[in-house]
């Protein structure tokens, strides 16, 4: 059992009982959806459908419906891919790394952070798929035995590493998330009365009995999966960064990329968790579980990773000058002063300068401000990927080929579409899944005789 000093502020406020925790979490599952949920999912569905329409048009007509050109072969597509993968980093970091470090506060946020991870990785996976010229041959990237003789995939290609990295990350995250859900599904199964949900949750809970043996195994598998997932947290974005780092394009060809990308990913992931949870705690009355303390902790992570990212930006700039490489130097001068200067400065402002305000405790414990900042960071991180991809490509070695990138409505539509699909999935999750790990939460509930007495006095 978890032991904590009595004077330490509890992680769960509101002097909850075990039963209340169950009721609070299950409120959304058993209750009726409120109006704001319907409005939210309505908007998200429209965005999703618009995006799906754009994607179908893209697939039917050709990649030319995007604004790419002979020089800029990747733009919003891979920007969005990296952005979504980055967002998908926080969940596993929270559930796996913080589990290993025995950070109990993670319990209030890990379920939804992991859900966000799963959905974000799904959205990320859309992009490498639809950016292909011939998506119907996407299976060529798998090392499948075939009749073509020695035809095999190219293990030198970072894009192939991506395939393995992302799919591994996705499957491990999914399993980890699902294992955590099983006891909670079982609780719901036991609580709901209607036959159909009972049946469905029964199936989802895999016949969980809740006996000591099951809990024992649950704890063990969680630890094993956490051990598996932890290196993945670092490997995925390292490998994504190698798409750029192993190339010869000035602005891409940078050894600093793996750590820089990983911290950037954690940075954006936490920002997205903030965005989602600040709304969710309010709408679903979970203020007692997701407290100011959680928000403050996450803001501290944001300030640390944001500063790492800032150091990386400055290092890049320094090295571009120090290397004495003409193209490298120009690539960075061009980023800051060229035609895409606004994206560079948007990135710098949003990612490096603005998170520094979290040094002030007053600001990092202010919910409204945190929400605003989380949006800023999300925008900044999108621009970071845009800057890396587009401003490096659009002016590389031969000035004759320098071009600009102009997005089309399909570029915009596809991006908005993935945001829409993501929110549809997340809203469905919030409605039908236990958004907090209610059984795990009970392990960190501070209970004392005082409180028991208080409760029974009524």
């Amino acid at each position, binding site marked *: 059992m978890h032991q904590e000093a009595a004077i330490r502020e509890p992680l769960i406020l509101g002097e909850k009982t075990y039963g209340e925790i169950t009721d609070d979490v299950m409120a959304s599952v058993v209750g009726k959806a409120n109006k704001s949920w319907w409005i939210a999912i309505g908007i998200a569905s429209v965005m999703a459908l618009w995006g799906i329409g754009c994607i179908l048009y893209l697939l039917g007509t050709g*990649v030319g419906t995007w604004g*790419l050109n002979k*020089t800029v072969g*990747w733009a919003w597509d891979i920007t969005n891919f990296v952005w979504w993968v980055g967002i998908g980093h926080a969940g596993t970091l929270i559930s796996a790394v913080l589990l290993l470090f025995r950070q109990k506060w993670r319990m209030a946020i890990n379920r939804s952070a992991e859900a966000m991870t799963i959905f974000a990785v799904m959205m990320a996976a859309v992009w490498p798929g639809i950016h292909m*010229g011939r998506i119907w041959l*996407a299976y060529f990237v798998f090392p499948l035995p075939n009749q073509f003789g020695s035809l095999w995939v190219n293990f030198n290609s970072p894009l192939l590493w991506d*395939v393995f990295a992302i799919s591994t990350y996705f499957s491990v995250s999914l399993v980890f998330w699902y294992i955590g859900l099983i006891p909670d599904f079982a609780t719901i199964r036991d609580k709901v009365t209607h036959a159909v949900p009972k049946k469905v949750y029964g199936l989802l809970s895999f016949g969980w009995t809740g006996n000591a043996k099951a809990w024992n195994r649950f704890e063990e598998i969680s630890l094993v999966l956490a051990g598996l997932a932890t290196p993945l947290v670092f490997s995925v974005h390292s490998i994504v960064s190698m798409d750029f780092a192993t190339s*010869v394009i000035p602005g891409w060809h940078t050894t600093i990329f793996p750590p820089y990308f990983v911290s950037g990913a954690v940075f954006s992931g936490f920002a997205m968790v903030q965005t989602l949870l600040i709304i969710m705690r309010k709408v679903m009355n979970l203020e007692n579980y997701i407290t100011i303390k959680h928000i403050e902790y996450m803001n501290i992570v944001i300030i640390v990773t944001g500063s790492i990212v800032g150091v990386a930006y400055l290092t890049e700039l320094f090295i571009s000058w120090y290397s004495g490489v003409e193209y490298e130097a120009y690539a960075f001068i061009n980023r800051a002063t060229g035609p895409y200067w606004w994206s560079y400065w948007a990135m710098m402002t949003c990612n490096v300068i603005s998170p520094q305000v979290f040094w002030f405790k007053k600001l990092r414990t202010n919910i409204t401000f945190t929400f605003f900042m989380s949006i800023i960071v999300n925008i900044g991180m999108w621009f970071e990927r845009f800057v890396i991809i587009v401003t490096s490509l659009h002016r590389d*070695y*031969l000035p004759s080929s320098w071009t600009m990138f102009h997005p089309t409505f399909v570029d915009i539509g596809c991006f908005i579409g993935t945001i829409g699909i993501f929110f549809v999935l997340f809203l469905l999750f919030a409605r039908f899944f236990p958004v907090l790990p209610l059984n795990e939460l009970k392990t960190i509930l501070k209970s004392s005789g005082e409180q028991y007495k208080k409760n029974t006095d009524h």
Partner: protein
Amino acid sequence: MSNNKKYWKGVEELNDTPDFQLKKNNEFNEYLPAEDFLGDEGLLSNSNTSRRDFLKYLGFGVTAASLAACETPVNKVIPYVVKTDKTNPGVANYFATHYYDGFDYCDIVVKTREGRPIKIEGNKKSPYTQGAINARVNSSVLSLYDEKRFKAPQIDGEEVSWSKFNGELKGKLTEAITNGGKVRFLTNSITSPSTLRMVADLVAAHPEADIKHVNYDAVSFSSILEANESSFGKRAIPSFQMHKAKVIVGIGADFLNNYPSSLELTKQYALGRNPENKWMSKHYQVESSLSLTGSNADSRIPVKPSEQSKVVLALYNNVASMTGGETLSKVSTPFDERVKKIAADLVKNAGESLVLSGSTDVNTQILINAINNQLGNYGKTLDINVTDNTKKAVDSEVISLIKEMKTGSVDFLVISDVNPSYSLPSELSFDEALAKVKTAVVFASRPNATTASTKYIAAAPHYLESWNDANPKTGHYSIMQPTITPLFDTMQFQDCILNWMGSDLSYYKYIKQTWEKTAFGMQTKSSMFEDFWNNCLHEGYFRPSISNESVVTTFNGDLNAAASAAAKTNSGEWELEFYTKVGIGDGSQSHNPWLQELPDPISKMTWDNYVAMNPSDAREQGFATEYGEQKNADTINITINGVEYKEVPVIAQPGQAKGALSVALGYGQTIGKQNEIIGFNFYSAMNGMNASTSSVSFEATGNDYQVATTQTHQTVMGRDSVVRESDWNTFKNGSKDDFNPAHMLATHEGPMNVNDVDLWASHPVAAAGHHWGMSIDLNSCIGCGSCVTSCNSENNVPVVGKDEVRRSREMHWIRIDRYFSSAEEKLDESDRSYGAMELPEDNPMVVHQPMMCQHCNHAPCETVCPVAATTHSNEGLNQMTYNRCIGTRYCANNCPYKVRRFNWFSYQNYDKFADLNPAQDDLGRMVLNPDVTVRARGVMEKCSMCVQRIQTGKLDAKKEGRSVIDGEIETACSSACPTNAITFGDLNDKSSKVLERSKNDRAYRVIEEVGTQANVYYQIKVRNTENNLA
């Protein structure tokens, strides 16, 4: 032995029970009501469906069902019952012929596959054009497969048969002749001895009639013809020996693009520009707009059009005073000092210099003649006895014909190969004159402005379907032979004339007759005419072994009159010059999408013409100076000689003289399958046929216009590894380190050559077998774009249209990067201020750099492809496997040369390209090279170094049991290059030219420090900047 054994079908039969017997007689075990039904006559006759009907229904039903289920199979059968001799499927045949459209003349070789012409190359054996070819000529094969061609003769817009057409016209002609009426032929300059003979025959046969042939060239060199008539008493254009000229001065003369025998001049020019020779020519260019020729000059003076004649006069005066000739009335220009230096240079190289002018002013041309005469260049660098015959049109004759037509006295007019309604100035009101001609017949291959208002339209064949001959230059004859049976019901001009003359000869027979009578007698090699003829047909040309006596001509002319006229040219605040573009030329092929998509060598603009203006002028006027992609050009309403054009885009063109505007001719016609008109027809604004005018005014409209360029950044940003250049002195007197230093990397072991620092194992191709490589001489490349269209044609490169070019998605496998010198150059290595380096100078130096896949031995594209669709061959080629490509575009991103092209759409299916891409209709598809895959949507493509040609060359060598001979295999670009700037070959062949060139002191590889180990080498550009003018 007989067999009595009995077999039973069952125990019942053996027992033979009564029950069995009953059943045995009854065929069907159960009761069938058939008898009841069929036996009852009444019932049967009452039934609606008889048995026959039933069978009918059944048959119909089955047929209908099967018809609905299957698509009608499309059967295309090639009737090959008797195989044509030497036509083997998969094996190409080559035919020598020539191209001549009044604008370009070129001896060519046509490649045919399975009987259809698919590629045009220069005839390397021809002593005249020496294999040189330009973009207009090598793109002309596409015009053969033009959907919009006339498919039969038309009378009043109705297609009729040739017998009816010819019958009617023969009657009209006879009527005109017997009435002693006026019969006129209006054609482009005719160099064909047979056609000239035919016209002469017709005139001779009917002395009673007034029959006359008028030559008309849309872009005429009438001024040179007339000037020579005045100076030498000979209406002719001299031939040139530019390779002997150490100093070349071009004054408004775009002699590499638009000049009599420009292909021959291009060859000669390149010969004199080789820095590895003892001397390299010095080229001065004085011109108003930056021409292809001017972009290659060592020293260039931009002047207004009206100043050109003054410069010529000043040049004459300087040359005359230095050589002791008579000087003429003085005229002062802002360029006197420079002109003096040019004159001094010319005089120093008297007899080894050449001065050319493209002026349409006769007096200026007389002065040019006088300068060349004063320098003693006649007989050395130019020869008036050996003439160029491709430009014969004299403007005054055309104008008097129009006057004649306007009086209504012309009874019969034949127009062939020209489009006067389009290309004559509107002030001459040709259409009005044409309406007054009693019978006018137009020979044209596709609808144009002239056919629009003519009753009789004769569907003319393409030149690849025609017979003809030519005498483009004194002592050079060639034959045009058909390479395919006419695709449509067409008849050529000469065949019709023969028919109308009542001759039963075909033109082919007539040509043979001509040759038998004339050419055959000019040689002694063959004793049989058929041998001689077949030999000429095979070689494509004939040079008489018996030459004409040379006539010594003396110069005489009234120079004072010329001088005073030249000094008096009108000037204005704004002056305008008409020029022709490299792609479109005089506009006779402006419907050809390959040429429309060929970027202009200077502005890199496609699909449009525009008003070019100096960037400083443009800034002063408040016009945009950057354009392309989403940056639009501003438009103006411009009035030229009283003709107003609305919403014409203005382009800031570095190199343009201040105060001078220029507009390209040849536009304003419909293109490809489209009905849309592209660009503006500036022919209509010409005053007479003068190439310049000072009567021009314009006003900004405040609107803008979308333009499509293939290059939006104009300068090289001081990147010495991309383009390397030096000057003649440094090159001649310095060492390699001075003009082409190796890239050194700072390592812990001290500086090392970049090629010695490598993480990779060296590629095995260097050791054994072939190792294909290429070498490109930046000094020889003039930027003409011939390689680009040649590559399009060889490799089935799709046409994507203006909108896609605006999106920077042109598909060209080879491009010519054009860099202007910057307004501010980099000071030294540590200079990191890029400031004005992005802006080109107002009068820049120009570099043309052909760029295609560099076939890197350590190719960045190969490592990043996830599916190994792009790999290295064991012969050093970087190859694309289209089937395997999934289209991630990673390779294109990682290509430092940005030469990879992605199929953004299905260009051969998607309806956006229906009007543009020839591969979208059955006829246009015939031009596709069957050896090269047409790439699918979503696939990456790029230069393959013409791997299909390499394979053919290797196979040919293998069949003959030998190794590949150096020079035997040529890529489409190297064979099309008129200056031999591109050399292809085997780097493993110790004696190959490409190896030698890759090792010489001028050789470097583009951005070598990236470590790609490219197989394409470049030779640095050397400028002869000695004595250059500030």
